[in-house]
């Protein structure tokens, strides 16, 4: 480690004086013997590297480089050079995964090339219409500050009533946070008697909360934890995995409740990019294998999809079984998003 670092420092010193001379001028296209896979940063990336990439490299002898970032960025990059895409394997949110399929950025799943696919329940392939496989999922329920909320609500409906009664202030995902249409708008509508075609109950509840000064909105996943930590809010809709990881790092004041209506399923999809290397199938197969999936689940504390995976007890208590979650109608929500966003902007604020 120390040798590597000092060499890097020396290199950087040289580079600072002659940046352009040393700069690689060619674009960084994915090579045939080495593939580029995508990941979020931090603990996620470390889990991907130690489990999926390690498994892939050990089995095939190839190499996989990890590109850190987020789905909108990766999709734009693929779209910009479809003939020679800079990415081979795309990790995606479900709404964008469907868009990627429709716009020809990714290939349909080829079952013959994936040994582990038979242990993945069909629902995890059908939900993306075969434009990839769901390998991991989160569930959106209620997270709260245990020291400041002594009597937490057991359902989404009770949560809203409690906030309107002035018991606590809610922190909810705002419209600029990508999963909000499913995890909040549809979820509220569904819990309050509406549906994907009638989201009036959701907007009415949000407006009432706003008038009562009982809600603030977060624009990114981290903001929610800040709201609770700083005392700007006491409770809100949040991910099971993120809540438990935060708990595990020592923030033992945070608690998670799986609401009576059921948490909202939020799948993470893996897709093979068009014109990408065939080694991409091998890598996707590693992502579906039970061993690496279990390791991944232990690290990020989110559920995985291979039915062979058996969670240890401590993790089993934390992960919401996918059969118990509410599955939003992803396709219909995808269609409705522009109208919902427009309505939100007018009625709630950006």
């Amino acid at each position, binding site marked *: 480690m120390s040798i590597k670092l000092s060499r890097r420092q020396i290199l950087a010193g040289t580079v600072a004086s002659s940046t352009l001379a040393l700069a690689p001028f060619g674009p960084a296209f994915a090579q045939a013997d080495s593939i580029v896979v995508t990941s979020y940063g931090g603990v996620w990336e470390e889990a991907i590297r130690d489990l999926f990439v390690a498994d892939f490299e050990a089995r095939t002898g190839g190499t996989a480089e990890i590109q850190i970032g987020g789905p*909108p960025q990766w999709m734009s990059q693929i779209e910009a050079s479809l003939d020679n895409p800079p990415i081979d394997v795309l990790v995606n949110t479900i709404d*964008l995964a469907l*868009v990627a399929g429709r716009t020809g950025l990714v290939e349909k799943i080829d079952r013959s090339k994936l040994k582990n696919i038979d242990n993945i329940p069909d629902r995890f392939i059908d939900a993306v219409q075969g434009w990839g496989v769901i390998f991991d999922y989160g569930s959106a329920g209620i997270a709260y500050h245990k020291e400041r909320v002594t009597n937490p609500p057991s359902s989404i409906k009770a949560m809203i009533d409690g906030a309107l009664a002035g018991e606590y*202030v809610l922190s909810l995902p*705002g*419209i*600029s*946070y*990508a999963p*909000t*249409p499913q995890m909040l708008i549809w979820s509220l509508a569904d819990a309050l008697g509406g549906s994907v075609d009638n989201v009036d109950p959701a907007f009415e509840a949000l407006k009432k909360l706003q008038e009562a*000064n009982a809600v*603030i*909105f977060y*624009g*990114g996943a*981290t*903001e929610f934890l*800040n*709201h609770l*930590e*700083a*005392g*700007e*809010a006491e409770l809100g809709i949040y991910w099971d995995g993120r809540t438990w990881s935060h708990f595990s790092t020592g923030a033992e004041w945070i608690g998670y409740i799986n609401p009576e209506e059921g948490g909202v399923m939020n799948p993470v999809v893996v897709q093979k990019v068009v014109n990408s290397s065939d080694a991409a199938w091998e890598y996707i197969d590693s992502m579906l294998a039970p061993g690496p999936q279990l390791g991944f689940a232990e690290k990020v504390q989110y559920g995985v999809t291979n039915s062979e995976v058996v969670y240890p007890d401590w993790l089993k208590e934390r992960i919401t079984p996918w059969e118990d979650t509410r599955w939003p109608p992803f396709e219909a929500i995808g269609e409705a*998003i*522009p*109208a919902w*966003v*427009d309505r939100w*902007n*007018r009625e*709630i*604020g*950006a």
Partner: protein
Amino acid sequence: MSGKNAELETMASTIGARAAVRPWRLMGFGYIIPSLLLLAAFFIAPLWFVGEMSLREGRLPPPGGGLWQNYERLFLDSFYFGVIGETVVLSLVVTLICILMGYPVAYFMVRHASARLYNLIIFFLIAPLLTPIIMRTFGWQVLLARRGLINEGLMSMDLISKPLSLLNSPVAVVLGLVHVLAPFMILSIASVLSGIDRRLEESARMLGASRGKTFLKITLPLSMDGLGTGAILVFMLANGSFVTLLLLGGGSLQTLPLLIYQQFNTTRDLPFAAAMSIVLLVLALVCLFFQLRLIRRKGA
């Protein structure tokens, strides 16, 4: 006394006219060519892509559709007019506050600060810009949250009974923007202030002008270019910012850049985002042009 006053006036006007009296040319047109080529190749050309994108069908087309549908959606709707207005007003307010707060600091830095203090000021002006927005936001939350330092302090002094909602308000947005943009204003003003010939001020004082009058008649006009630079930079940066609004505004303010980000991140309606960008670009260019005119007139 009136004679001296007239002399002072003449002096002030000659100062303004100075920049204009440049009887010969040092630089040829060739000096501007590298910049123009750079922008032509890597700014104007990609703009064509944005323009073309803005004419494609968006995800929420107005009835009838048509080539200009995304623009129609923007201009035939009072809601979006409000958004455009809010964008401009926010940028103006932030620019004005930066001028009012920044000028005294720049003046102190150039005229009164010791060498060591000067270095310290430069460092502290740079530091906020090196802090990622999410961490800066955390800093603000510690201060402004319902259970933050300000509210706890006010409550313990019994000045308020219920915590104030300071976060997620336009106030928090303006505070957050001024925090990162004021350094642009201060350094712009300071770079011009430091070049002002102090003998001019001395002469004005000898002609009997008061300190205040000397400042208004001599120093301020001479530093107008720095103020103009700062105003342009701050205005444009405020005009294009969305992360601060997203994290500190909590939906209390809606501006074009925020809606553009939404189209990119949530709805994936790139044609509509492109149309909003073209509108924002034109709007900003019009403001820029007026600002340049204003500075030129003030300086001449």
